[in-house]
């Protein structure tokens, strides 16, 4: 499935929704302006979302990402719900959201927590530029991302590398977690500045989280 070089505007749920075991989608070089979210991933496999440009998310209002009941609204420009495998989000530019689109990229719990068998495994967030969201630039909400799945034969786990996050209302990068689910996610070569709370904020517990700190 190839979705490339399209323009999206004014679609109040999202430019693209990818759900229910959709596989091998390549979503590249698209633009989004005044949509709800840019993209929503729930239960997808082997997807690439790269070299896309978007701004002003939620500016003209939003519709539910899932109709419910109760209706569920997204909370980010790029939304990663539960159950995604081998998802690459790279080289995208995301600028400015309005509530409820509070975050740039969110591994979110609004669609349910991602515990096995619906865990998110092997998610790579690389070289994205994210600025001016009212919440966080990149956020891994509690108990959603596991980079050390057990009982699998797949390759390396999830990581967040080489992103630039600036001027967001809360944290640049926020790894949340009172449990061990969000631990062991390598964060490397990210640049963060001008974020209102912390540039990088890690409340996860456990070993192996590389290079995070509250700065």
């Amino acid at each position, binding site marked *: *499935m*190839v*979705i*490339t*070089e*399209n*323009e*999206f*505007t*004014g*679609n*109040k*749920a*999202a*430019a*693209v*929704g*990818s*759900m*229910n*075991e*959709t*596989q*091998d*989608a390549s979503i590249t070089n698209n633009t989004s302006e005044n*949509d*709800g979210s840019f993209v929503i991933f729930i239960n997808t496999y082997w997807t690439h979302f790269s070299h896309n440009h978007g701004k002003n998310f939620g500016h003209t209002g*939003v*519709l*539910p990402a899932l*109709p419910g009941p109760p*209706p569920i609204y997204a909370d980010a420009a790029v939304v990663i719900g539960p159950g995604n495998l081998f998802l690459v989000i790279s080289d995208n530019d995301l600028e400015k959201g309005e509530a409820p689109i509070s975050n740039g990229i969110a591994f979110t719990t609004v669609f349910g927590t991602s515990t096995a068998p619906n865990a998110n495994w092997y998610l790579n967030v690389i070289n994205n530029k994210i600025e001016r969201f009212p919440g966080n630039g990149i956020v891994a909400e509690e108990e959603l991302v596991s980079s050390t799945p057990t009982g699998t034969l797949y390759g390396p786990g999830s990581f967040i590398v080489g992103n630039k996050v600036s001027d967001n209302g809360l944290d640049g990068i926020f790894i949340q977690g009172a449990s061990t689910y969000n631990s062991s996610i390598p964060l490397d070569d990210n640049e963060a500045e001008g974020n209102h709370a912390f540039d990088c904020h890690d409340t996860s517990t456990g070993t192996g989280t590389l290079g995070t700190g509250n700065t």
Partner: protein
Amino acid sequence: MRRLRIRLNDQKRFVCSAAMAAVFVLLAGGANGLAAPTVWCVPSLSVNPSCTMAPTPHTISKAVSLASSGDTIIVGPGTYNESVTINAAITLLGAQAGNDARVNRHDPAKESTVDATGKGSSAFYVHEESVVIDGFTVEGAHSYGSPTPYPAGIYVGSYKYVQVLNNILQNSSTGVYQYGGGQDVIEHNLFRNNNEGGEVDSGYGIFLNGVP
């Protein structure tokens, strides 16, 4: 040597591109010793010099129902209040076939507009592999009281190799709804204000549901 530069207006460009497409189809058929595919034209034969047949009544749906796999349907500018179900591997060319929907597509009079308002279904309902939909404006497909699931500007069922190119998809519940299928291409389209279903199954430019 002086270089000769030829500039085509939109109408000539459409006629030219459609004619080239038709010639390509004819040559491909001839090379394989097959009967030449038919070039259907809506609303009339005058739409394009390549036209070989025009349906009566002069609707896209009628042309599609008469077409066989491999045929091409060329649709001239105008508004067509239809819901078109496609059951053959055909190519549908609107008046803006080949022209990127993101660039200089501001004149509705130059568009082939398929408006599904009041139909309670999708504007295009794709039920076959290898269908091409190129160069249309598609609008008015929404879910109020619909007898069919998930109406969209273009609904693609479980069929592969479908191409959605150079279309403006606007003011429907969803621009393109893909259920199953796979290995399809969605390129150079404009998805605008697809929110017509309200809070139920609405608000997406593209929705991929279980696409392998």
